[in-house]
């Protein structure tokens, strides 16, 4: 096991390096640069102003020099400076990380818990009206664009009903502390987390339901029934456990997006997280910030892939690591 993990980690380092070089080249291929965007926003500029900016940002260097400087920094975990915000990228990401983790982790838990429960319930009532309703809802949420759901949720629950705050991380200027602050953040979290979770909930429902039905027709389930086990035990211990493998695969994918996967939700709900940081960095051509976010996201995907593989082994004894 230890050797397996080590080998995977070594591979991951090389993949990360390749990703870095690829990202760096792609970003620099996009039209415009941070200096021109900044000068553009000022509404007036001259040669000197642009030159000053480019020199300050190191953009006057040839491409391969810039790439070399970046890679050299990145292997020492120095992600450089944000041109626009004048802060180290690592600080920016670190600063935004808690908000994003809170949002995506909540959405992750919501979608897994509700998705699996609803999927199991639908499979157990196959063909009945409750199954139809669950399946129809799942299909609806699967097909609806996230930003539209987000806007409508904000409009309904915030503007019309006034139940929940429609955007933001906490009530600005309220200066809550302790439990009151946690409650306040929690209230702000409901809409974005639910919105973000809906799509994955729908996928888990469909996946769990299909997988449960498939497994329930297998021979060992018949054997279990013949042994006289109660339907509940068969569902939990025999069917569900075997049906969970594809769900785990999917959960691994979703977990990989835990850092960078909430761009739309964070933008619509003004959630001060990493997805928004990335979105703004794209339009501002803030190369270092963008590369930094990509770097962290890529690392997360690799990490969660590894974790998923380990979880397989734990959940399903049939799977073994080949050394």
């Amino acid at each position, binding site marked *: 096991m230890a050797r397996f993990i080590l080998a995977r980690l070594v591979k991951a380092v090389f993949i990360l390096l390749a990703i870095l070089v690829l990202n760096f080249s792609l970003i620099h291929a*996009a*039209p*415009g*640069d941070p200096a*021109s*965007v*900044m*000068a*553009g*926003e*000022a*509404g*007036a*500029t*001259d*040669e*000197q*102003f*642009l030159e*000053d900016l480019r020199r*300050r940002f190191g953009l006057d260097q040839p491409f391969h020099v810039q790439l070399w400087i970046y890679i050299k920094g990145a292997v020492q975990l120095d992600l450089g400076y944000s041109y*626009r*915000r*004048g802060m180290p990228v690592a600080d*920016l990401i670190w*600063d*935004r990380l808690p*908000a994003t983790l809170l949002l995506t982790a909540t959405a992750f838990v919501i979608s897994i818990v509700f998705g699996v429960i609803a999927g199991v319930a639908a499979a157990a009532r196959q063909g009945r009206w409750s199954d139809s309703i669950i399946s129809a809802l799942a299909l609806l949420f699967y097909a609806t664009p996230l930003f539209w759901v987000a*806007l409508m949720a*904000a*409009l309904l629950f*915030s*503007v019309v009903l*006034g139940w929940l*705050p*429609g*955007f*933001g*991380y906490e009530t*600005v*200027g309220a200066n809550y502390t302790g439990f009151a602050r946690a409650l306040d953040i929690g209230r702000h979290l409901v809409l974005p987390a639910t919105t973000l979770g809906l799509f994955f909930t729908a996928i888990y429902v469909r996946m769990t339901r299909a997988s449960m039905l498939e497994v329930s027709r297998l021979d060992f389930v018949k054997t279990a029934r013949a042994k006289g086990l109660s339907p509940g035990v068969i569902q939990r211990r025999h069917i569900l456990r075997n049906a969970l493998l594809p769900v785990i695969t999917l959960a691994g994918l979703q977990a990989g997006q835990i850092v960078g996967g909430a761009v739309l939700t964070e*933008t*619509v*709900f*003004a959630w*001060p*997280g990493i997805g*928004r*940081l990335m*979105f*703004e960095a*794209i*339009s*501002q*051509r803030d190369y270092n910030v963008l590369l930094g976010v990509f770097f962290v996201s890529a690392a997360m995907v690799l990490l969660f892939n590894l974790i998923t593989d380990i979880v397989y082994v734990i959940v399903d004894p049939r799977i073994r690591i080949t050394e």
Partner: protein
Amino acid sequence: MKPLLPSLALAFAMAATAPALAQQSGGTLNMVVQPEPPGLVVGIWQNAPTQMVAGDIFESLLRYDTDLQPMPSLAHDWSISEDGLTYTFHLHEGVKWHDGEDFTAHDVVYSVDVFLRETHPRLRASLVHVDSIEAPDDHTVVFTLNQPFGPFIGVFEVGTMPILPRHIYEGTDYANNPMNATPIGTGPFRFNAWRQGSYIHLVRNEDYYLEGRPFVDEVYYHVIPDAASRAVAFETGVVDVLPGGSVEYFDIERIMALPNTCITDAGWEYFGPLSWLWLNNHEGPMADVNARRAVMHALDREFMRDALWAGRGEVATSPLSSSTRFFDDDLPSIAYDPDLAREYLEASDYDGQTLNLLPLPYGETWQRAAEVTRQNLMDVGFNVNLVATDVAGWNQRVSDWDFDLAFTFLYQYGDPALGVARTYVESNIAQGSPWNNVAGYRNPELDAMWEASAVSPSDAERQEIYSELQRRLIEDVPNAWLHELGFPTIYRCNIHDLVTTGIGLNDGTRDAWIEQ
């Protein structure tokens, strides 16, 4: 926030006829700033959002009323010598920086002569007319010009000439000065906190030199990236002020239906934002003057104003905005006339090439304006292709003259010599910037007139030249002028004196007060 008034009509009536109410102190002002500024030290950053927040923290020598007449700010008095060469400013005494240091004339000399000369391209262009800047004593500043430059009295505004603390910046690397994170100004509000991605918090400057001002205790600038969410923020009462451009124009009507909601177009007179289509005079179909005239008359700008810009702003009748000095209201018509457009097109060399039209990537309304424009042009016989870009891509294409037609809008800064000439003079043709004479219009005769008018000693003479310039430009149609843009500020009606100058919210909120 409780609705104070039952109906919008009544709210308007009240706002218009309200007797001078006694100003009340206290309260919090919640505003929107969009996009999040890169920094708050105006002078290092000149972005629109920086200017808006910085107007509360920093000040300049003068402000300007809605007729662009100078008003006192850090200077309580000023005079211009007979020959137009010497500008003398007398500064308020007892003004302190937010860190307690005294503000003096030496800060002014340092800011203009050293700091801004290095960092501020727009001011730099005006400073070529300045021979020396001196401080004969702690509260007097004298600017000596090398020749009369009429527009000079218009450059003392806070976005153009902010006064920065010498004791903090002298001898440092401005862009990387650690104090940039906690800006120190003389303004009515002090910087308190900036939660990146969420809000910027300013608090009342207790030592402000104007007794009793500012009236409100604190100001929050909320950072909300999505236009629809900004509308929601106002609807749910989280923010009370939506500065111009915060929400899409098609949302204005819905927002205005809310109780206690007021709207004003004032506060943009100094900027006079004018939109137009760059027409590529360098090469291609638009190098032909008749094709350009055809474009000008093909555009149904009344319809755009009413349908897209929610009826806000005016259809442009001149290269000058009507709030800019020396605007002439008696010019040949450039109105919508599709038949005339077809005649011009017939007379031109245009033979069906596809024109590339660059929309301005600043949101939904601009996108729709591009679609209407395309439709209008196709109606008279042009073939038009919309090119999709983002902001950086737009900058790049416009800077590289890679378009046939491209949307833009620019500020005019009150005087044609400051904000209009730059668009039309040949000396300002250079690739690499989207804000110079991008169209590539060349007319040596007019260049001489622009030059003469800037340094002409009397306003009467200047008016004569500028009227002629406006007529000549309309004849040549170097660009197709669209609208004097209206950037309405939407706010709760119980906030008073929010916009009091021709610079509007960028001038800070020192006079604003909230009726409890």
